[in-house]
């Protein structure tokens, strides 16, 4: 067993802020969606909008950080991406049950496996921005209608926003489970708290 420093302070901060914000957005969003009523529609609505601004602010901050530090390179892959993704998928489908080593070693210059790279890249560049755009379209609906947007759009906008939110719940379940697939059951979570991770030799 070896210990490597994988997550800088900003990354850990951003990760847990994101976790809190997304959890709050999902929770209040489901109430606005009418699935339950706990804090009251109006409160849920206001908290939801508050965290939406928070998420947008933090995403911009994170983009700035990743670009200025050059750390965005951690998300790029050299060579055949599909082949590498399939190696990682095969590990989760087969190798993990046979106690095989992880196909990609983690170290300071490469902390994400190819499957993580593509997943997080899609989430941050496509999923969350879409969710934010549709969310703000929803939020400023009356203003946009006054500017000429057809009022009938509220339904598709609301449905896409809902669909993406539900998919995000699926992601969170998967994501939390995947944290248990490291060197030990908790080594991934510990790393996201302390920055240091125990990895295979």
């Amino acid at each position, binding site marked *: 067993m070896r210990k490597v420093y994988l997550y800088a302070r900003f990354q850990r901060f951003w990760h847990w802020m994101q976790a809190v914000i997304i959890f709050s957005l999902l929770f209040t969003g489901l109430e*606005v*969606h*009418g699935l339950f*009523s706990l804090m*009251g*529609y*109006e409160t849920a*609505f206001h908290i939801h909008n508050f965290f939406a601004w928070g998420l947008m602010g933090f995403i911009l901050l994170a983009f700035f950080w990743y670009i200025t530090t050059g750390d965005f390179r951690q998300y790029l892959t050299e060579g055949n991406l599909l082949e590498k993704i399939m190696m990682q998928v095969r590990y*989760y489908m087969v190798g*993990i*049950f*046979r*106690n095989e080593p992880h196909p990609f070693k983690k170290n300071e210059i490469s902390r994400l496996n190819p499957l993580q790279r593509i997943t997080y890249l899609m989430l941050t560049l496509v999923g969350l921005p879409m969710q934010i755009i549709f969310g703000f379209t*929803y939020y400023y*609906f*009356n203003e946009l*209608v*006054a500017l000429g947007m057809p*009022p*009938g759009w*509220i*339904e598709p906008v*609301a*449905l896409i926003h*809902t*669909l993406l939110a*539900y*998919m995000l*719940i*699926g992601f969170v*379940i*998967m994501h939390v*489970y995947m944290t*248990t697939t490291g060197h030990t059951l908790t080594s991934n979570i510990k790393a996201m708290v302390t920055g240091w991770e125990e990895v295979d030799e």
Partner: protein
Amino acid sequence: MLSPKENALGCVECHARDGRLKNLGGFYLPGRDTSPFVEILELIVIIGTLVGVIAHAVMRYLAHKKTLTGGAA
């Protein structure tokens, strides 16, 4: 646009499955309307993910137990 955000009425008077606008059709009302397609699709995705994850965990546990007691590892 009929959207009195600041109103004497509580939001859930209208924004609820059985609110006072229950029978007023022709427009999408947040909190009242859902698309069965979206809800069912997502129920399948979320339950599918949960079942998949639990099955995977159980298989890992069993495989792990075998290596421990099988003496191979």
